[in-house]
């Protein structure tokens, strides 16, 4: 009974926190930041695969979150909304990097990352695969990295990208097709 009362009190507190944030309360925003920063950081890191960039994009994401506080709907929860904003921040970053033609793969420049890959596949093949992956259009890359590499459920990926599950599957399919063509052009037949 006491547990039930406590849960109801916690729920009430949670609702108040979200409502305060919606009204632009910075203290409420800090509480939400402390609760969600790890999850947001982890999600971004899965996409960009570089801790320094993930730090930077986590800050950018929370700045965007605060800027959009008036549009936040407390009834729909904070975590999914934050993840969606984080995904778009990461996508914008991927597009800007692509525009600058900085297509060097983070993993390729990080020997330790390649070292932890499967030793049955040569480092050269892994490096070429990772570089070919970086050449994919950002929209396809983000769907493929989350769904194939990180094995996140398609439903979660779809929610984060603001598209349907069928669209996620299509993007992954197209990403794999393009990757196959790229690798074949380099003489790699998986």
């Amino acid at each position, binding site marked *: 009974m006491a547990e039930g009362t406590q849960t109801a009190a916690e729920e009430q507190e949670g609702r108040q926190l979200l409502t305060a944030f919606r009204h632009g309360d*910075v203290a409420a925003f*800090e509480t939400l*930041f*402390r609760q969600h*920063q*790890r999850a947001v*950081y*982890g999600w971004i*890191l*899965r996409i960009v*695969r570089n*801790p*320094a960039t*993930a*730090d930077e994009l*986590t*800050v*950018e994401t*929370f*700045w965007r979150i*605060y*800027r959009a506080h008036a549009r936040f709907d407390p009834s729909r929860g904070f975590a999914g909304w934050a993840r969606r904003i984080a995904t778009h921040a990461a996508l914008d970053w991927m597009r800007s990097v692509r525009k600058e033609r900085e297509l060097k793969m983070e*993993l390729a420049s990080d020997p330790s*990352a390649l070292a*932890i*890959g*499967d030793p*049955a*596949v040569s480092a050269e*093949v*892994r*490096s070429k*695969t*990772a570089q070919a*992956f970086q050449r994919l259009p950002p929209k396809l890359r983000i769907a*493929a*990295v989350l769904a*194939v*590499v*990180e*094995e996140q459920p398609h439903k979660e990926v779809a929610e984060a990208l603001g598209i349907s599950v069928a669209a996620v599957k299509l993007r992954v*399919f197209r990403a*794999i*097709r393009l*990757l*196959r063509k790229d*690798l074949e052009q380099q003489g790699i037949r*998986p």
Partner: protein
Amino acid sequence: MNEHGRNRTEEDRIRKLLQKSMPPIEAEPEPSRDLWPAVLKRLNEKQAAPPWFDWALLAGLVGLVAFFPTAIPVFLYYL
């Protein structure tokens, strides 16, 4: 094996190769430092910067005064 089946198998191989080339991130990664001070700094910087339409309004007023100096008393009257 037909064309469709062969394509399917090759795509499965690509998936596996991708997973081997880019190992998944550990379960619960943490930021290297507390990011709240950086968020707060960013928030204050952005709040301090006037919005673009303020600058546009100011530019319009300066232009108006420069090209139509006789409008100054009218502005002063309405201030």
